[in-house]
């Protein structure tokens, strides 16, 4: 067992060093798909989180609770629901999105949206209450004052985006259900790991896991560094 693992590691390093095409393909697609998903979710989630964190409106606490609950949604469950919606006989079947990268992007965007909304709302709420009044006494308009509040919340918002990207990159359920793991089209790191390992191709699985771990590690270290540089 241990020797299997070591052998797997050795082969994995070889695969990575040799620049194996299937490894590169899955890696780049993972980055692209999860990056787009996070971007999409941010476009919707940041303004939503901003509003939820700074305004009072009826149903607000209910909505906050909903997004908080959705933080823990099982990826495969979300994948299944979206599969049913996007499959040929489903309500959006006509779009022909199932088993395309776009389907994964949409699915992952929905998956990480609650992270972006809840974290952003928290960050905005965490901004000192006096900031808005302060900006106004210094001459800021309502709009400029809101922008200042958002700027103050940026470290938290940044964290939200990173956390969202992490979740998208590391999830399996949505990518598997909506992408179908088609080689060269919808294969991403996680789906390849799952498939190759069940097919007995353990070395490739380990190689891809190593890559996935390195990406997550490098990304988070870089994010931490940037955060410290900019905001402390």
């Amino acid at each position, binding site marked *: 067992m241990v020797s299997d693992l070591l052998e797997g590691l050795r082969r994995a390093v070889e695969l990575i060093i040799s620049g194996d095409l299937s490894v590169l393909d899955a890696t780049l697609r993972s980055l692209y798909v999860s990056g787009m998903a996070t971007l999409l979710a941010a476009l919707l989630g940041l303004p939503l989180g901003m509003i939820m964190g700074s305004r009072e409106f009826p149903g607000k606490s209910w909505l906050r609770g909903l997004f908080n609950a959705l933080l823990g949604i099982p990826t495969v469950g979300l994948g299944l629901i979206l599969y049913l919606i996007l499959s040929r006989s489903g309500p959006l079947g006509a779009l022909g999105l199932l088993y395309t990268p776009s389907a994964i992007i949409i699915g992952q965007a929905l998956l990480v949206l609650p992270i972006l909304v809840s974290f952003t709302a928290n960050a905005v709420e965490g901004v*000192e209450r*006096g*900031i808005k*009044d*302060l*900006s*106004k*006494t*210094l*001459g*800021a*308009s309502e709009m*400029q004052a809101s922008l*200042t509040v958002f700027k*103050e919340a940026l*470290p938290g918002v940044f964290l939200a985006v990173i956390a969202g990207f992490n979740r998208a990159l590391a999830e399996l359920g949505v990518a598997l259900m909506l992408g179908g793991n088609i080689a060269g089209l919808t294969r991403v790191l996680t789906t390849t790991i799952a498939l190759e390992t069940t097919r007995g191709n353990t070395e490739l699985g380990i190689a891809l896991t190593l890559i996935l771990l390195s990406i997550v590690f490098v990304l988070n270290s870089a994010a931490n560094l940037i955060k410290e540089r900019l*905001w*402390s």
Partner: protein
Amino acid sequence: MSSLMSLHDLVKDYGEIRALDHVSLEVEEGETLAILGPNGAGKTTLLRIMAGIEEPTSGTVYYKGTKIGRRGLARLRMSCTMVFQRTVVFNTTVYNNIAYGLMIRGLPKNKIARRVDDALNLVKLKGYERRPAKRLSGGEQQRVALARAIVLEPELLLLDEPTANLDPETASIIEEAIRYMNRERGTTIIVATHNVFRMGEVAERAILLMNGRIVEEGLVSDILLRSSLAGFAVLDNVFVGWAEPTSSGTSTIDIGEGVKVEASSERRGRVTAVIPPVDIIVSKEPLESSARNVLKGRIIEVSEVGSTVKLKVEAGRVFTVQITKASLKEMNLNVGSDVYLTFKASSIRLL
């Protein structure tokens, strides 16, 4: 002098609570006005309305003769600014904090740099430009807040308890900057404070606010005398007593309950004596010093105020003393501790 701001019959309700109760006030251009009163009297609410960040429930604000409604608000906020009691700084450098309002006004970069530099000099924070504002001490942050306001060269500067909870050194830097703005730049200044005599030296005119109403209006010293019964229980160490001159050019003041203190000026008759809480030294044993006043008492209340601690000491009359948290800890003082209060004759101000 002409009127800069005039308030007509302001009322402000927060739900059931009436924070301001029919307040009318004229503020003259170039004057320094103190708003006195205990905590919860409505001082902050009044300042916030004047700063244009709070709307009165009813009543009208005129600025330079123009009624301030939704429309005049932007112009009001451009000409007048406020420094809050609880210091808030933007999460960025000291420079960017101070430059904020100038950037909003779209000033060119070199002009901003020059004015920020001047403001930093005034509050004695030169060299702090690149420091993250959040990492500064409370006193330094308060100086940043003041610099951020005066850099705008406002017509009207509103200050909410600018020296409360600050060490005496920082407090005097801030007072000096305020005086400079008033004298050299002609800035009209309104200071809200519950500590009458710190600002008593800065301000000429004062109003006394109690429960949202103006109960006294006039010169600071007159207000202190006139309202000795009405309001001054709420101020620290204000005693009304009878002064008798001594042979050495000082006077002894009987402040009641058998307590006599010595003040450095020669007076006779009814006086109001004020002793700054920071000028009183607390010790467990009697001190050998040149200070003329030593009283023995017992601590009856300890309350934390920012980085300092307020002690109420029963020594015939109740005295308020302000010390640092560190000294409280070092001396291991508690409610019930017996202490000696020592202060110089020159620390007593007679009004």
